[in-house]
């Protein structure tokens, strides 16, 4: 095993209630890679992300869709939550009531980067879907971990914003694994595409080495069901 390997799954099978979600899956991810997981819904992308997360929980920032935010708390607190494990509990409690100047400065810098200037005090439930995803991204950036795992990080923003946000996400950490619903976005922002179908890897290549018909195959409806 080389120094640069971050994740190594070997013939991994994972299932819920006896139903296999991932079957015999092998995957190695090295530091510095930007991996996009693509494939139809239900293919096992979220399960794969969660499996990777459980391998290295302390070195990862896990970015869900916006559902992982606490809607009742401010943008500042939601971003700060990325580092709850790096502060003692009493400081976390104090920050909830009265954040220190230093924390406010740090978080506001992150909010500026994701385009939420001056919104630190807004409750996240008052923000739009796109703004909420920016907050979630801010939390991943603030966590400053060696690996970011992201599940549909730009599902509720328009294509133009999606490019900007994924660009930022790329700068958040050396290694990035993200599940994306759009092949075009994946081609533009990943260095490696991994296509999943029925819990198996059916495609694994650099974006420019995949012929277009392979994508059609990946997303094709199973004929037996027609």
């Amino acid at each position, binding site marked *: 095993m080389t120094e640069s390997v971050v994740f190594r799954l070997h013939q991994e099978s994972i299932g819920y209630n006896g139903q296999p979600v991932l079957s015999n899956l092998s995957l190695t991810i090295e530091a510095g890679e930007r991996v996009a997981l693509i494939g139809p819904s239900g293919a096992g992308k979220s399960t794969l992300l969660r499996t990777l997360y459980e391998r290295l*929980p*302390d070195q990862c920032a896990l970015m869900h869709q916006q559902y*992982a935010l606490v809607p*009742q*708390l401010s943008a500042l607190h939601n971003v700060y939550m990325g580092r*709850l494990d790096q*502060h003692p509990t009493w400081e*976390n*409690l104090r920050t909830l009531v009265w954040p220190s100047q230093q924390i406010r400065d740090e978080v506001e810098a992150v909010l500026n980067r994701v385009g939420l200037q001056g919104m630190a005090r807004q409750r996240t439930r008052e923000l739009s879907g796109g703004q909420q995803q920016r907050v979630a991204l801010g939390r991943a950036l603030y966590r400053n971990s060696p690996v970011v795992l992201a599940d549909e990080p730009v599902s509720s923003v328009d294509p133009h914003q999606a490019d900007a946000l994924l660009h930022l996400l790329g700068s958040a950490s050396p290694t990035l694994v993200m599940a994306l619903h759009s092949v075009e976005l994946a081609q533009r922002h990943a260095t490696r595409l991994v296509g999943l179908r029925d819990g198996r890897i059916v495609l694994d290549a650099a974006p420019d080495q995949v012929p277009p018909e392979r994508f059609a195959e990946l997303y094709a409806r199973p004929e037996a069901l027609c």
Partner: protein
Amino acid sequence: MLKTSLGFIGVALVALLGADLEVLTLDPWGELGRMASGLVTPDWSALWSYRDALLQTVVFALCGTSLGAVLGALLAAGFHWAPVRGFCALIRAVHEIFWALLFLPLLGLNAVCGLLAIAVPYAGIFAKVYAETIQESDARPRDALPASTSGLSRFAYAVLPVAGTDLRSYTAYRFECALRSSAVLGFIGLPTLGFHLETALREGLYSEAGALLLAFYLLVGTLRWWLRARWVPVWVALAWGLLPKATHFSWENLTRFLTWEVVPWPLRREGFYAGTQTVQWDASGLLDWVWELAQGDVWSGVFNTLILTQIVLVATGVLTLLLFPGASHRFTGPWGRRLVHGGLIVLRTTPEYLLAYVFVLLWGPSMLPAIAAIALHNGAILAFLVSQRADRLTLRPDFPRRRLDRYFYELLPRLYGPFLALLFYRWEIMMRESALLGMLGVATLGFYIDSGFAEEQLDVALALLVVTAGLNLGIDQLSQVVRRRLRQEALPGAADRRPALAEPA
């Protein structure tokens, strides 16, 4: 569902044979007329002299709820632990008034007694509801926190903010209940509204009683204006400041209570006559005592409590099914609905104990007043909840035009399942009330508990309280089995635990 319903109706009909439903007074209608005229000609001038009682009613409710909430929150933290769950079930199985009767000989007739009588059972209820609310709240924010975040940070950032609204509104609903509990505690002598209400009713001063009752409705009806979230800390602090501090508590008292007064009489007999107050083990004497109690008070009390509970369960169900169309826009126009809603709010705001007290004045102490009081109070709450569900249903556009067709073909079949779940959810509450109303003369468990305390037979009273709590836990378990059999959710959701009638839409 039909079989279960018919089974319960059958049981209730058999129970009716054993129930004493006699009207014992000579002129119930005339008395009702005098009461009604008292309610419409309230003597507001009397209210000024009762201002202290009104204030104390609010003070007890505020202090009792806040203490109960704090204790309940602490207990909720250990709710995954079976002994804690059992302890909470036990303390909430005993009605506030019984707690007050139990604390009376310990603490004397004072504010601390009233405070604890509310806070102790409420702590058990809060613990259960808080723990369940947190369990049912959205877990996704929790899962997304960094893996090694400390438990307290996790709680403060991703649990409390998410579940906070539900926790707050349930606590507010409980405060409304506490106002009722607090008022009713006056009936056993605490300086709240019930004390003067009882006097006024007993002496036939119905205009005074009317003013007191209307003042109470006003107090509850205006809750949402004066109980603003940001004012709560101020109100609570003020209430604790105003709570009378005088109490007769002494360790000596407590020790004597626990090691002497509640010890079964046969074990005390010799020590009592010798004047040494020592406890002497006497197995056969104890057995005789238990046997005698079981044959006498316990048998009669349990029998009558169960008869009353089963009659009331069915009566409440029938009343709910009759009343809910009046509160639903599927059946009733805006004005009629407003009228029915008003009636439901009054019935639910009036404490069932007070309702029963009034009915006893009208009809004398048979089972009739208790049935009417419990069924009206619970029926009003359920009718409102069921009408809300009726309003939320989407019906096909060509639904039957005639109301009876609509009721029997569209709404009743759809609502019957949730209706039964809600009804059985309150089964245990109805049993607790059935036991309690024995205090007014029906021979349910409360009657024997009350006489036990009155005759200073604390051993008997405590044994009967334990039986009552056990019966309540049994009904609670049974209700869960029935609800599971009906394939309803084991527990109604958060909104059903908080049947707030006056909730903003």
